[in-house]
């Protein structure tokens, strides 16, 4: 597999130069994680610096490979790096290798850059935590796994990274595991993710059964000849995996609880990178979804439902991190919707993922900065008027706020608007349904994000008496500023000339201009009107009117949204209780039936054993007699038989 042909005829060449040391991307942070975990207390003093340096080193390697890639013409930017023969079982051979193309490179840069910034931020945020070394080790483990996930050249290797990020996420959500609620949150994320992982594993098994291979190139080559049913099944199973990792409906319930982890973790893993792995999986598997319109439609539905679901939940949350989590869910819904639209959406899904990575990470860090200054208070009803005391946080958060709203020329405008536009492309009922969902979602987003922003930074002070808010140290605010700059201009730079979609085009296709069912200028105007209405509503309710410290009863919808639209109750009623009854039943059957049979058999064997044992009486004469009897019996029987 020295070269492989992708759908648009791009030649993948064997890695040379910087890209041939692409394995360093994974190896450096992995070494850091291992070193800090094995090194123990000896590395307590300087371990976090080592982890941060290694993360930046990975970024440097990634950037160098990126520059090398830019030096080639667009058709020759894809590199394949063979690592080693991984599995060789009979006719099945699998090499572990890395695929450095435009898609994975976008992720590499996002993960290493934002990840490194968050390492820096954490130096300040975790300065007084006794387990700081362990925290940084897990962060490095996460970066390594995430890079392995996006660089893998086969679904199986991707799965290794997939589980690696899951492990890191689990460890970091439950980082303060002495608090039972946090430990439970970690377990919840773990269990829900298992459901998704079953989907991914089954998809890989199905690929092996249908195509006999699990590397991207061979699966892609085989899709054309496989039966439609199988391809759809594989697509839906991949979608299930993506739903678990990306907190998409119906596996979204874990993300809110995952906010139990330290805030930098929420920023990096549960906003900017890991939760977007599902989108990556769908886009990377574009050739499967292209071959199965049904699977693709399912992706669209999941995306549309989640984007509205998250937006509605976000309107009612008073916990700043949970509101941001709901918003993450909703934004990933946008990406998923775009990915479900096919080649016209893939590039914009990744584009939005990138800009979202910046502005959402920036806002999470801002939230962390607020918590840092407010004695770890997360209830927004206890905030208010922070703009005066935390100027830097206010401005940087404001940039992220404008970006997610999609106000031009901030980053979100360039990516989200394109998704809304793409959702309106097509025939029949689909553009109207998905387009309207995306459009309405933008309005709700404007409302709940403004609500969050106003409740935190504007209005009257509602602080408890014992807090003295203050700005965070530079080591925390500098990363926030860098991300704020990204939130402000990244979309403009990459979007105004369609630079990013063009960059991705050799991998994901697209390019041909499609016309939405409504004129795109009208759409843009409509979106902006809705956004302004959302902001205005929030302004009236949360700046003009006083915000009560105790949450009011609220409408039925608000009450439902506060408990995440009853998702936990549904899960409990639909899965947990029947599951408990099933396991109880199984335990009963096991005890009475299986154990009874096994116990009986064991008693029989034991009884036989003690009876036969008496033959072993210790007398050589009876041993000799046994032998003789054996000889006579054998000879006699054989004589009779023959």
């Amino acid at each position, binding site marked *: 597999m020295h070269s492989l042909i992708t759908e648009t005829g791009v030649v993948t060449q064997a890695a040379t130069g910087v890209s041939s040391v692409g394995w360093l991307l994974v190896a450096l942070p992995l070494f850091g994680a291992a070193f800090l975990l094995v090194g123990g207390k000896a590395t307590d003093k300087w371990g976090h610096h080592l982890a941060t340096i290694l993360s930046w080193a990975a970024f440097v390697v990634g950037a160098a490979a990126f520059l090398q890639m830019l030096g080639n013409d667009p058709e020759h930017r894809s590199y394949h790096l063979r690592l080693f023969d991984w599995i060789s079982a009979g006719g099945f051979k699998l090499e572990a290798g890395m695929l450095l193309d435009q898609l994975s490179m976008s992720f590499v840069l996002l993960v290493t850059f934002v990840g490194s910034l968050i390492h820096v931020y954490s130096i300040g945020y975790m300065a007084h935590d006794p387990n700081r070394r362990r925290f940084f080790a897990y962060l490095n483990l996460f970066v390594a796994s995430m890079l392995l996930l996006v660089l893998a050249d086969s679904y199986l290797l991707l799965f290794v990274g997939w589980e690696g990020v899951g492990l890191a996420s689990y460890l970091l959500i439950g980082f303060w595991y002495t608090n039972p609620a946090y430990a439970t949150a970690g377990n919840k994320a773990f269990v829900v993710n298992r459901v998704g992982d079953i989907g991914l594993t089954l998809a890989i098994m199905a690929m092996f059964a249908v195509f006999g291979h699990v590397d991207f190139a061979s699966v892609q080559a085989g899709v054309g000849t496989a039966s439609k049913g199988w391809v759809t099944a594989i697509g839906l199973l991949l979608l299930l995996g993506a739903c678990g990792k990306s907190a998409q409906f119906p596996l979204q319930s874990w993300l809110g609880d995952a906010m139990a982890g330290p805030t930098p973790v929420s920023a990096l893993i549960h906003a900017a990178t890991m939760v977007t792995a599902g989108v990556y999986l769908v886009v990377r598997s574009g050739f499967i979804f292209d071959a199965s319109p049904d699977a693709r439609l399912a992706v669209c539905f999941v995306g549309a439902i989640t984007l509205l679901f998250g937006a509605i939940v976000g309107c009612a949350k008073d916990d700043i991190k949970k509101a941001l989590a709901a918003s993450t869910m909703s934004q990933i819904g946008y990406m998923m919707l775009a990915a479900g639209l096919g080649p016209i959406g893939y590039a914009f899904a990744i584009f939005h993922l990138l800009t979202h990575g910046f502005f959402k990470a920036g806002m999470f860090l801002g939230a962390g900065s607020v918590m840092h200054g407010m004695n770890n208070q997360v209830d927004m009803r206890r905030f208010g008027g922070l703009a005066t005391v935390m100027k830097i946080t206010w401005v940087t958060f404001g940039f992220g706020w404008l970006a997610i709203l999609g106000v031009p020329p901030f980053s979100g405008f360039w990516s989200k608007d394109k998704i809304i536009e793409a959702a309106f492309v097509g025939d029949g009922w689909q553009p109207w349904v998905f387009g309207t969902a995306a459009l309405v979602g933008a309005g709700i987003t404007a409302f709940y994000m403004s609500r969050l922003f106003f409740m935190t930074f504007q209005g009257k002070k509602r602080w408890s008496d014992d807090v003295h808010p203050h700005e965070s140290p530079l080591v925390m605010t500098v990363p926030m500023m860098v991300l704020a700059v990204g939130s402000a201009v990244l979309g403009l730079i990459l979007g105004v000339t369609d630079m990013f979609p063009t960059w991705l085009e050799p991998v994901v296709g697209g390019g041909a201009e499609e016309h939405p069912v409504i004129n795109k200028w009208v759409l843009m105007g409509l979106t902006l009107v809705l956004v302004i209405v959302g902001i205005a509503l929030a302004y009236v309710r949360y700046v003009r009117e006083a915000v009560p410290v105790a949450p009011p009863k609220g409408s039925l919808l608000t009450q439902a949204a506060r408990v995440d639209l009853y998702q936990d109750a549904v899960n409990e009623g639909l899965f947990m209780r029947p599951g408990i009854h099933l396991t109880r039943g199984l335990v009963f059957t096991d005890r009475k039936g299986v154990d009874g049979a096994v116990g009986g058999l*064991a008693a029989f*064997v*034991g009884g*036989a*054993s*003690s009876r*036969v*044992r008496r*033959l*072993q009486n*210790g007398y*050589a004469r*009876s*041993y*000799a007699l*046994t*032998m003789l*009897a*054996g*000889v006579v*019996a*054998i*000879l006699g*029987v*054989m*004589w009779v*038989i*023959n």
Partner: protein
Amino acid sequence: MSAVVTSAVPAAFLQAVKVDYWAVLPLLIVLGGALVGVLVEAFAPRRSRHTLQVVWTLLTLVASLVVLAGWSRGHEAKTLGGSVVIDGPTLFLQGTLLALSILAVLTMAERFPGQDADAFTPMGAATPGSPYEAAAARAGLTTSEIFPLTLLSVAGMMLFPAAGDLITMFVALEVLSLPLYIMCGLARRRRLLSHEASLKYFLLGAFSSAFFLFGAALLFAYSGSLDLVTIASTTSAAAPELNNLLLPGVLLVLIGLMFKIGAVPFHSWTPDVYQGAPTPVSGFMAACTKAAAFGAILRVAYTAFDGSRWDWRAAVIAVAILTMVVGSVLSVTQTDMKRLLAYSSIAHAGFVLVGVMAFDKAGVSGTMFYVAAYGLTVIAAFAVVSMIRENGSEATHLSQWAGLGKNHPVVAGVFAFILLAFAGIPLTSGFTAKYAVFAPAVTDGGRAGVIMVIIGVLCSAITAFVYVRIIILMYFTEPSSEDVTVLVPSPMTTIAVTVGVLLTFALGVVPGPVLDLAGQASQFIR
């Protein structure tokens, strides 16, 4: 009549015999080393005798192994007038035997805190408990003749699978057995039990040798030769009135050999002897005697008796099934660790017989892989048993092992791993070895092969229960006595256990190279 007699004399006596010295050099080195060892015993000063003997024995074995691996491989041939056949299986098994006996010698040389080999009595001839014995112990006497005896026994074992005729095979059988009879009686502790074991082993061994000889005589009468190839070629061409001699002859020879592997119903000696013998010797017997005897069984079954196998197959299949069932069922109620390992070795012998009965090259390689893998594990197992003590004597009763995991996690962990290997859990050599013998039995053994494998798997489940129960005993039961301790072993035992356990793990994870080697070495020269 005289013509018959002339042709019956082995060809070796009638013509100048050509010897391929490179091919038999490993064997000669071990024999020579044993003789020098006897001289060392006679002339070396008492104080340095133990060290000298250990070093000399190890040197001999290593030298033999080096020559075997380096030169003998290129000299596969029949030599010594056809009496010795150096071919793939011979070389593989000789190499295995040498490697295993190096580990076994390391465990035999263990002194623990004492002056001499810990497992062996200072004076074998003294009456147990007599003043004479006490005086010998005071005088610092030692039975370091155990090492030349081991070398002699190893030489017999190496000749056993290489034998090209039944007389050579019988000589090899006796050369390997006689030193073992003595070694079994030299335990330092519980000497009466040790003497009893020695005597029983000797009596029953002599009994089984008689069967072997009787069988050989019948085959001689049938074919007019003791040469394995001649017996094979006569099988279809003999006079019809002699046909009734063939089957009893074959069966009796096989019975004589199956005694050595402890197949049921010729197994009764095994538990008593393994229990009474010095623990390192039990390990040596379980590993090396089995490997050598299976080599001999493979040799006769595949080169001399394969033409008539449809007549005698059923008997060996019945023995294999009986061996698996009795070995595993009886291990359930054992209360003594050494007896338990003895019954476990019986069950294992049954599993290996399944592979032998495949009558295919894969069966040969599977059998050889199994005995190699099992040998490595069982030597480590007996070495660990020798380390667990209560008031100085070996704590072999199961109740003494309770709670071992609490106070001695490393030793208990190692032993638990060994037990898992015996049970055939994946990632240990036990699993790959079972697969290696069961797979050819299913593919080439016909319906009987499938039945044997099903019974084999069921018996594995029974033995797994036994092993896991010990693991539970070690980890989840409160210690019964505070006096049970683990002696700190010298580097020698440590090396033996470490090598055994690591290879048990390695052969479970990457069995490829050794399986390939066994596969390449599975062709007999006729």
